[in-house]
């Protein structure tokens, strides 16, 4: 396990690494997305401000689209731009470009949209309650479930809520489009996770007006976390349209408030769980989960998030009878999209919290309830997939002893007897399926390419982007190790759809697990073709054979089957596993939770680069901490958040000590890593809060206001009981 340095660290610190807004040319126009400031309405007229020279502006509307006004998604139901009807706040109505940024902004601020107001659903919690807001295809998994009740069991029925979460990548979204009228081609450069998605989107909006679309990423991508999976399609489409109409290069870089208002977020969820648990053994006999996501105004990629959420909603537990239902709900809010975890953080929050409530109900310790119900080697998931390994048990036992869980628990309880401030310790376990869900990888058929030049450079061509996670360094390391060739001469080329084959999107913890494994196999294939086992000297001795190119395509394992209708079969070939203990300190005077310590024990298979892997765990933990404590997007009576002043992100002051251990590190497989550290800390923080405060919580985030409400309501209940 090596810790090769990241090749891009130094220029990034010095500010010489180029992000999208650092690309400039004199010809370039600035673009802006003009969007609706209302929730639902029929547009009757758009008034452009009179005091500007309209000839200087390029303005595009839905009616200017030569191709199709539908973003190609798993469900293609979202237009690039609203035509007559706006169905959510932030829906784009116009694309506008001008040479001067300030004039552009002044102009757009004075545009008036006349519209007839229509009824709108904007209260997310209410939306998720009402089944008539349901849309799209329902998922139902039935695993030996019988509705009859069991007299020896304790029945527990709870509802859990999670809020929106903003990805808050530091670099806002943006795209440059350069139209070449002679070649009828469109060059797109931008900050994105999925160059081939963007290519398809631009081809869709431009239709037969252009012959060729080439998409390349900027040198640096300033964070993404899922936020740059699908929204870049829309920006690229409109930038392309503006460039086509103006004949000039157009750069759109969103400012923070536009970015936070119009782009996708993590889906808010309402998850209802019923459980029947044997009173004596603590074994969960039956479980039902009703998993509901607010998709926003359009489905877009929500069905895929729903699928992953449902497939993680039963947790890492062996349950004999289960019934799981997954549904999407429609509201008049911007479509929600991908965010690290992709439906799993909501699911794992609910099931892990529920397990804790069962334990408290039965008077069983939080670690014991998990031991009793844990998925073990040979057990069957509700999807009928048989578990092949016992790593989750090892994660759990290691984290309990390493964190000194039992002693701390006792000590904290002693402390809490005599102090107004409180201490709490919490525990949660989680899993995350690597790669696309179900048959996804089979359909994607990712392909990778390696070339070797005369100048002895090994170049890797993939469509996967490095948005900070260190993909280029780790992928180069995989190839360099497999070829026994110096890392300094092994490079990943900036993704470009004209040069790199489609190795699939940079999502689903698949970059190292799927694409890295393909590259490793391709490198072994190259090794086998180079007879003298020394690539350097072979290139020197056979200059006529170079440059040379090799390709390899993903071959699905024929024994892996998944039924998209019944959700039975192997949903994910390999799972990563993790267990976590969290210690908190509660400041009673300000109702605030401070996270003091997080212990992570993870099985991600072989960590290719130890330091990069640690960085993923630390970053994921802190995003999860924000999810648990401070982050939400709508506040009743306040409205939506507008930037980093009201959307509260963890800062240097909030950072606990983070401890990380990897198990199963000699595994031949490097499994998914990016998402799992986001999945499990939130429920661990919640159950530490329950331990500290002796109250039950069912909803995130645990802001001081929300904690105050829960304490106040349980205080009132107590008074009411005494009065009776």
């Amino acid at each position, binding site marked *: 396990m090596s810790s090769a340095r990241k090749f891009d660290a130094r220029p990034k*610190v010095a*500010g010489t*690494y180029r*992000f999208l807004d650092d690309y400039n040319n004199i010809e370039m126009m600035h673009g802006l997305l003009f969007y609706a400031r209302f929730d639902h309405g029929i547009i009757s007229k758009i008034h452009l401000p009179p005091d500007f020279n309209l000839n200087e502006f390029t303005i595009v509307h839905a009616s200017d689209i030569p191709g199709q006004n539908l973003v190609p998604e798993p469900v293609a139901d979202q237009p690039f731009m609203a035509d007559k009807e706006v169905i959510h706040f932030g829906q784009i109505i116009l694309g506008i470009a001008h040479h001067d940024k300030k004039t552009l902004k002044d102009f757009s601020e004075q545009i008036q949209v006349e519209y007839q107001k229509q009824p709108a659903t904007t209260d997310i919690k209410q939306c998720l309650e009402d089944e008539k807001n349901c849309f799209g295809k329902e998922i139902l998994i039935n695993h030996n479930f019988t509705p009859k009740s069991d007299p020896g069991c304790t029945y527990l029925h709870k509802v859990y809520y999670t809020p929106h979460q903003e990805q808050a990548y530091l670099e806002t979204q943006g795209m440059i489009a350069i139209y070449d009228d002679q070649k009828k081609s469109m060059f797109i450069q931008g900050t994105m996770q999925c160059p081939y998605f963007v290519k398809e989107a631009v081809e869709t909006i431009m239709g037969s007006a252009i012959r060729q679309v080439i998409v390349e990423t900027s040198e640096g*991508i300033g*964070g993404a976390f899922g936020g740059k999976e699908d929204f870049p399609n829309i920006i690229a489409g409109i930038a392309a349209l503006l460039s086509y109409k103006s004949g000039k290069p157009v750069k759109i870089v969103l400012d*923070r408030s536009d970015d936070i208002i119009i782009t996708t977020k993590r889906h808010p969820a309402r998850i209802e769980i019923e459980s029947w648990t044997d009173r004596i053994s603590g074994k969960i006999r039956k479980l039902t989960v009703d998993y509901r996501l607010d998709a926003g105004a359009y489905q877009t990629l929500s069905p895929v998030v729903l699928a992953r959420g449902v497939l993680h909603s039963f947790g890492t537990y062996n349950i004999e009878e289960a019934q799981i239902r997954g549904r999407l709900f429609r509201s008049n809010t911007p479509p929600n999209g991908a965010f690290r975890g992709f439906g799993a953080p909501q699911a794992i929050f609910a099931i892990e919290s529920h397990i804790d409530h069962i334990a408290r109900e039965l008077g069983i310790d939080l670690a014991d309830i998990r031991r009793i119900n844990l998925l073990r080697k040979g057990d069957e998931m509700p999807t009928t997939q048989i578990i092949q390994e016992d790593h989750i048990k090892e994660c759990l036992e290691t984290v309990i002893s390493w964190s000194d869980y039992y002693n701390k628990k006792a000590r904290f309880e002693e402390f809490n007897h005599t102090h107004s401030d409180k201490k709490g310790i919490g525990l949660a376990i989680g899993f995350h399926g690597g790669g696309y869900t179900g048959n996804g990888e089979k359909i994607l058929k990712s392909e990778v390419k390696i070339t070797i030049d005369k100048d002895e450079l090994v170049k890797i061509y993939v469509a996967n982007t490095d948005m900070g996670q260190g993909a280029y360094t780790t992928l180069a390391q995989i190839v360099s190790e497999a070829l026994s060739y110096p890392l300094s001469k092994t490079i990943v080329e900036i993704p470009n759809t004209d040069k790199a084959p489609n190795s699939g999107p940079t999502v689903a913890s698949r970059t190292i697990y799927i694409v890295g494994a393909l590259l490793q196999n391709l490198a072994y294939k190259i090794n086998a073709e180079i007879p003298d086992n020394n690539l350097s000297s072979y290139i020197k001795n056979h200059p006529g054979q170079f440059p040379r190119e090799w390709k390899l395509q993903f071959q699905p394992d024929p024994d892996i089957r998944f039924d998209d209708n019944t959700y039975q079969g192997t949903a994910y070939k390999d799972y990563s596993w993790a267990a976590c203990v969290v210690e908190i300190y509660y400041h009673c005077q300000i109702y605030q939770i401070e996270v003091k310590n997080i212990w992570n024990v993870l099985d991600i298979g072989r960590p290719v680069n130890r330091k990069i892997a640690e960085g993923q765990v630390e970053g*994921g933990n*802190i995003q999860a901490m924000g999810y648990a404590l401070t982050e939400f997007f709508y506040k009743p009576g306040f409205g939506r958040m507008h930037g980093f002043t009201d959307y509260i992100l963890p800062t240097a002051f909030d950072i606990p000590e983070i401890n990380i251990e990897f198990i199963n590190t000699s595994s031949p497989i490097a499994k998914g890593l990016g998402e799992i550290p986001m999945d499990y800390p939130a429920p661990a923080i919640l159950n530490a809060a329950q331990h500290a405060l002796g109250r039950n919580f069912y909803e995130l985030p645990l802001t001081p206001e929300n904690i105050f409400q829960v304490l106040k309501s349980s205080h009132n209940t107590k008074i009411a009981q005494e009065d009776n």
Partner: protein
Amino acid sequence: MKISFRINQKDVSLDLDPMRRLIDVIREDLGYTGTKESCGEGECGACTILLDGFPVTSCLLNAIHAQGKQIHTAEYLAKTEKGKLLIDCFDETNAVQCGFCFPGFFVSSYHYLLNDGEPNLEKIKYALSGNICRCTGYTKIFEAILLACDRIKKQV
């Protein structure tokens, strides 16, 4: 109006709207694109520069605030001796992920190294409290600055 200041040891004199944001002057008029804009409201610190040696968010300042002052950006600090030492430490600890926030972190930590430099975690957290990073969880950034403080102490 005419606005004159010194940036990265070079004297400049520009005819500017005095209310133009200083970050736009630095990035667009002078081409120092190492200074990044992220939140545009002084919360995230990606646009941190040294103004007369003190770290400030350039998105909240106007061109007029630079009048007669001395500005240093990440590009310049990267070439100084302490700057190079800090970059080594960020590199060795894998403190950098997407790196968009990093020129700002670099300027704040350079200022800390120059003006305090004690390897004290609480003080370092205070020095970085005006910078937001969404990728790393900060832990390795702290580690890097502690390492840099230690190295400088050993040099003296």
